């Protein structure tokens, strides 16, 4: 288990617990009561820490190296029926973006998402979940395929951003993301999106235009990462905590501002402490959302989806007289 800096008290208790267990094993002294007590203590400690996470701490949890990624969700929720499909039919098969069909409770779904690597080698191959244009085009190809055969779409978003490389620019990263936003708006099948880790900027939104968009409890979604925001606005990497607060990037903030449709609870201490529970929570929401969405006729579905995104934004309409006065005063 990797512990985050603010999890030190939990680490200490769990170390103690492990020692106790070892002692019990070796000496055969019954310590069940003590272990039980310590377990309670640990649970309370985790609850205490996790009920008061700052925005930056949530960002840290969202990046926990043991957090489950897209393929783990796909495998579990489809009960192993997930079949990965490859390639954008143009230039490549981007390993940072995965997709394929799978069955959930008898219904076929197209499942697409960014995929981070699970070890050093795979992290490199998957570019830490940062997709190239080929990835976005593969995602779009699979979405159009699902639409053609009337299959609902689920996307799992987990990316520090679209890949900012030389080839990505040559192959039109901007166009690829823009095209996805445009095409996703018009898909005639239900689209359900989940932020399962990091939701950074256009790279996240590129597979995020859905009828329902949910965030897991310890994830973040914004226009920029707190680190980059800090370096641009404060001209230093030191202010990431402040930037994380200012960006209002947590699930709670996003829900309160009406920019997502719901928050999915995570098991105590984060999705990595009990991945199965996280998968179950997500699966439940997929099935519930699909039950609602499948009743809506395709035309209305598209109109509602577009209307949802069109209504996002906060502007003030000044009194026209006020403007005229201003012009006169100038």
């Amino acid at each position, binding site marked *: 288990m990797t512990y985050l800096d603010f999890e030190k008290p939990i680490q200490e208790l769990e170390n103690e617990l492990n020692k106790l267990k070892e002692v019990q094993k070796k000496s055969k002294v019954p310590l069940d009561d003590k272990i039980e007590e310590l377990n309670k203590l640990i649970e309370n400690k985790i609850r205490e820490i996790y009920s008061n996470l700052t925005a930056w701490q949530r960002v840290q949890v969202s990046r926990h190296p043991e957090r489950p990624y897209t393929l783990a969700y796909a495998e579990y929720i489809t009960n192993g029926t997930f079949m990965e499909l490859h390639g954008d039919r143009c230039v490549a098969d981007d390993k940072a973006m995965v997709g394929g069909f799978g069955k959930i409770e008898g219904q076929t779904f197209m499942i697409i998402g960014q995929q981070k690597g699970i070890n050093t080698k795979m992290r490199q191959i998957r570019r830490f979940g940062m997709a190239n244009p080929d990835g976005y085009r593969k995602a779009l190809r699979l979405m159009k395929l699902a639409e053609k055969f009337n299959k609902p779409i689920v996307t799992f978003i987990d990316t520090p951003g679209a890949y900012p490389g030389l080839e990505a620019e040559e*192959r039109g990263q901007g166009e690829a993301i823009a095209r996805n936003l445009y095409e996703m708006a*018009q898909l005639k099948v239900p689209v359900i999106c989940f932020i399962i880790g990091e939701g950074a900027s256009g790279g996240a939104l590129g597979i995020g*235009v859905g009828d329902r968009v949910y965030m897991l409890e310890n994830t973040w*979604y914004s226009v920029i990462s707190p680190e980059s925001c800090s370096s641009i606005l404060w001209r230093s990497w030191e202010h990431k905590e402040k*930037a994380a607060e200012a960006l209002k990037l947590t699930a709670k903030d996003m829900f309160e501002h009406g920019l997502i449709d719901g928050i999915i609870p995570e098991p105590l201490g984060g999705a990595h402490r009990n991945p199965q529970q996280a998968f179950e929570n997500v699966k439940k929401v997929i099935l519930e959302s699909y039950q609602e969405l499948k009743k809506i006729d395709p035309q209305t579905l598209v109109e509602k989806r*577009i209307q949802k995104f069109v209504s*996002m*934004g906060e502007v003030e309409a*000044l009194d026209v007289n006020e403007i005229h006065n201003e012009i006169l005063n100038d």
Partner: protein
Amino acid sequence: MGWFKRIKEGITTSTKEKKETPEGLWYKCPSCKKIIPSNEHQENAYVCPHCGYHEKIGSVEYFNLLFDEGKFVELFSNLVSKDPLKFVDTKPYTQRLQESFEKSGLKDAMRVATGKMNGMSLVICCMDFQFIGGSMGSVVGEKISLAIDYCIENKSPLLIISKSGGARMMEAAYSLMQMAKTAAKLSVLSNHKIPYISLLTDPTTGGVTASFAMLGDLNVAEPGSLIGFAGPRVVKETIGKDLPKGFQTAEFVLEHGFLDKIIPRTKLKTELFHLFDFLS
């Protein structure tokens, strides 16, 4: 003992008597450093006649350049940003907005106007880089959305002139969602078969490139414009070596297949008119 002897005295005019050239009478090209009279520069669509450098200009200049006799009606000019996140970095967003109002005389980074171009009705949405780096927040998204409604209602073609550093950080996720909002609305415009031309100017990057700027029925650009998704500095850091010459210029983007055409500003009105005419 020196080799030369100064015969004439140096500058003798006292600072008080120094004659200032009136400001704005001359334009010095930042690219070739040649100096030309400002009015000549303006008449040449703010393009350097020596080296072809396209000076960055704002919405007023584009409207005057493209609408017949410079006549147009501005739409949705009363929209301003609301600071939904109460955003504070080194200063509050509201203060930043106030300063931008005063400095630029603008209400946000985009203005929308309707008028005639060679007699053809047209709606132009034009970004202003002066206003917080031409960044896209709720106002830019809403103006594009309303402009599209107006185009559908009046069967008017649409031109969007992009000039932006990308999404506006101070509106965070709201800015991000403007990408989805504008793209979704453009898909509706497309269903109505109303032509949309996107003109990308220097610079067009980030969330603007990754939404409406790349979604024209035709994408055109001014010569030499910086166009990309990630900024050049970020790309350089990623690949860990120097960028090839001409990387992310309009010419580079054309070469890689993401632009239909590069149009010099001096021919902008004529060629845009032709393009719209083909689509109408």
